[in-house]
């Protein structure tokens, strides 16, 4: 049984304004916006970004990774292996996907807590529905990561209680674009007793009452049941469904809301997390004094910072295109070649972790890593240098209207890293019209493209968030 050691979240840059849906379809929509994974992101790439933030907040290296999602990038193949590769975990570290159901998010978190070794649970999801649906409007895309291990941690789990039933509330056949729900009043009637049972039992285990809970998180697959339980449970403060204004990120939602509470909770406070998904589960956590110290010592964007930093201007038709719901004329260029398996395997530390080589003799950095030095000619006198967390400045750039990309135009930048080294790569999450020499950027893990059924993961640059705001 481990303690919670660190957490991290990732909310993609783009937001779909709900009025944009209404404007396009003359119906539906609503207020606010939802987070949308860019065309170069998927559940795996977002999981990597959330896991990177968690990793920066703890020195403990996980020995297992559980990746939970309802939108796995691959079936059959373990997507969590990409997370391990991007974090540079030892090959002794286990990797496993918990894929299919929304409940798997909290399940992965509980399994990481139960594990006898440092274990990372990464919850990552893309949620949507058919055009004009409530799920399209209310869904969201995001990821959250939680590292459990031997304490002292920032929170400990003091009680867990579940109640499960077999009933039809929300479901989806494999390969279908949207889930279906039974009449929500039916689900509500089944969920409520289960939710009360799980909460009551958890409170009893901990010897506390609902009024002793400083922070409650309630979310789930049935909005109506979630809203009613939030009213009935007797908590003084509830963080629920769209508290972050980014939509419900499915498997990741419970993690995002928990992370939001941890961003603001005090020491020795009780947090009750209840998920309504094919039953009810309540997790009771108690924060430790280390939470405050660890937060201060490892500052990073809070969940609300990430939620607030998005770009609200995503056109609805672009969203539909990215989701594969609108087939557009492709560029008149040859089909892309997929990455080949053997070179991807040989170059794993470069491709997945952006590890360069630095000449021991003269210090020149080589991206991609090279055995021979371009400056002094020495061969095989190189040391590995991880570059993913280093910032860089744009030296020159090109907005490429001709290149093949799922979302034209492609923006190419030549970067010079602060500590040395140059890379020419693509710029993500940027307005092509506002790129300039001297822009500050950081690296982000993306799915470059998919060709012949193979995803090509690699790194892009993106504008440094602080620089964007100023």
């Amino acid at each position, binding site marked *: 049984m481990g303690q919670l050691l660190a957490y991290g979240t990732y909310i993609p840059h783009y937001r779909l304004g709900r009025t944009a849906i209404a404007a396009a379809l003359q119906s539906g929509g609503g207020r606010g916006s939802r987070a949308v994974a860019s065309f170069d992101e998927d559940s795996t790439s977002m999981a990597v970004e959330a896991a990177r933030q968690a990793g920066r907040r703890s020195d403990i290296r996980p020995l297992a990774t559980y990746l939970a999602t309802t939108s796995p990038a691959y079936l059959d193949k373990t997507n969590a292996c990409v997370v391990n590769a991007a974090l540079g975990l030892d090959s002794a570290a286990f990797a496993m996907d918990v894929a299919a159901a929304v409940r798997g998010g909290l399940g992965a978190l509980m399994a990481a807590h139960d594990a006898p070794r440092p274990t990372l649970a990464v919850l990552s999801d893309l949620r949507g529905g058919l055009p004009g649906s409530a799920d399209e409007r209310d869904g969201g895309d995001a990821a959250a990561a939680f590292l459990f291990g031997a304490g002292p941690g920032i929170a400990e789990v003091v009680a867990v209680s579940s109640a499960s039933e077999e009933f039809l509330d929300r479901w989806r056949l494999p390969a279908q674009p949207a889930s279906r729900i039974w009449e929500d009043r039916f689900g509500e009637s089944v969920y409520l007793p289960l939710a009360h049972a799980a909460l009551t039992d958890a409170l009893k285990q901990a010897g506390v009452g609902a009024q002793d809970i400083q922070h409650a998180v309630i979310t789930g697959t049935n909005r109506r049941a979630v809203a009613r339980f939030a009213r009935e449970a007797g908590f003084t403060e509830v963080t629920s469904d769209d508290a972050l204004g980014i939509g419900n990120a499915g498997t990741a939602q419970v993690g995002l809301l928990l992370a939001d509470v941890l961003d603001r909770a005090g020491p020795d406070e009780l947090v009750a997390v209840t998920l309504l998904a094919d039953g009810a589960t309540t997790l009771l956590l108690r924060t430790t004094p280390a939470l405050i110290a660890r937060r201060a010592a490892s500052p990073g964007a809070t969940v609300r910072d990430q939620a607030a930093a998005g770009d609200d201007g995503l056109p609805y038709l672009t969203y539909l295109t990215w989701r594969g719901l609108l087939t557009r004329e492709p560029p008149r260029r040859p089909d892309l*070649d997929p990455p080949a398996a053997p070179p991807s395997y040989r170059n794993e530390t470069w491709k997945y972790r952006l590890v360069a080589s630095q000449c021991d003799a003269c210090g020149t950095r080589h991206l991609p890593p090279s055995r021979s030095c371009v400056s002094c000619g020495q061969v095989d006198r190189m040391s590995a240098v991880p570059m993913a967390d280093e910032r860089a400045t744009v030296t020159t750039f090109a907005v490429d*209207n001709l290149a093949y990309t799922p979302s034209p135009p492609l923006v190419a930048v030549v970067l010079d890293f602060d500590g040395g080294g140059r890379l020419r790569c693509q710029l993500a999450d940027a307005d092509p019209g506002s790129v300039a020499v001297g822009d500050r950027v950081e690296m982000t893990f993306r799915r470059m493209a998919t060709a012949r059924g193979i995803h090509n993961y690699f790194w892009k640059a993106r504008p440094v968030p602080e620089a964007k705001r100023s």
Partner: protein
Amino acid sequence: MASRGIRDKVAIVGMSCTQFGEHWDLSVDDLLLDAAGQALASAGVRKDDVDAFWLGTTGSGIAGLALSKPLKIAYKPVSRLENMCATGSDALRNACYAVASGAVDVAMAIGVEKLKDSGFSGLVVPAVASDGTDSTYDLSAPAMFSLITPAYSAKYGVPADELKEVMTRIAWKNHRNGAHNSRAQFRKEVSRAAIAASPLVAGQLGVMDCSGVSDGSAAAIVVPADHAHRYCERPLYVKALTLVAGPGQGLIDPSYDFTSFPEAVASAQDAYRQAGITDPRAELAMAEVHDCFTPTELVLMEDLGFAERGKGWSEVLAGAFDLDGDLPVNPDGGLKAFGHPVGASGLRMIFECWLQLRGEAPEDRRIGAEQVRRGLALTHNLGGQPGECVSFVSIVGTDPSA
């Protein structure tokens, strides 16, 4: 260790160049037969008189068989080589070296490319199986070369709109020259307004800043210099040949600033040394340079020593490289107007030197008499992209040195 060159050891005694363009009705074999036949006729030799052949093509055929089969060359040495856009130049270089070494007496260098059978408007480069991380496979060629313009503007304080005028003037000049070239893909003058307003392809580059994608072939017959007059009255003597491949430093080393091709500088300096040229701007009659995109020609004016660093743009605007300028550059229209059938382009450049230095260029696009009297012409051919490329420079002349 030395780069001695083969100054005045070999001569070009016959040349040909097909019409460049969209040859929907001609195959690679047709283009090769036409170019080879015309080059042989130009030198007054028969196919059987040629001892060895070098075929340059980037993707329109593989192995010597791509030439021996259409020409029915029987049991002779035929090499096929590829060096990106410098392929045709490298074919010539190898043919010249074979003759200079004494291994053969008569060699043919021939380049060909059939780009218009791919169905795509730009260049299609076959990819090597990779880990999917090399941005060379992501970016279009114009985007790679457009990386020059923000860097040039920032370094020399040339505002983007003024640099665009410079680029436009280069395209305008090359189209103007090409308008008088019957072999060129594009044979019409284009107004500066139309060039400047063409749809953006990448960065500041519009469609009209890009070279023509075309089909074509060109060939040369090379013999020992002291045999030259057996074949032709006015041979072209090879003064210098250089080819350098860069280590790819520009995409690794932050000291590279995207306002120069170090490979072009190195190949030019070696060529000037081989040819004994100290002031290229004053000594050269003309130059054919690799204007794949307009910023390339701008930067090359500085790399080849035709203009001072940071001054190339103002020299372009002043007309220094116009047909009637101080040093005419791309009098045949260049890649821009003549078209760029990759494997043929290096030999096409030599073909223009062949015409101009020997007084065979049509009157309406002839370089000045004063320039012709200088007697030396340069070709520059580049393959790759800013940061990592191969660069070729040749210097040819009408007079053998004493």
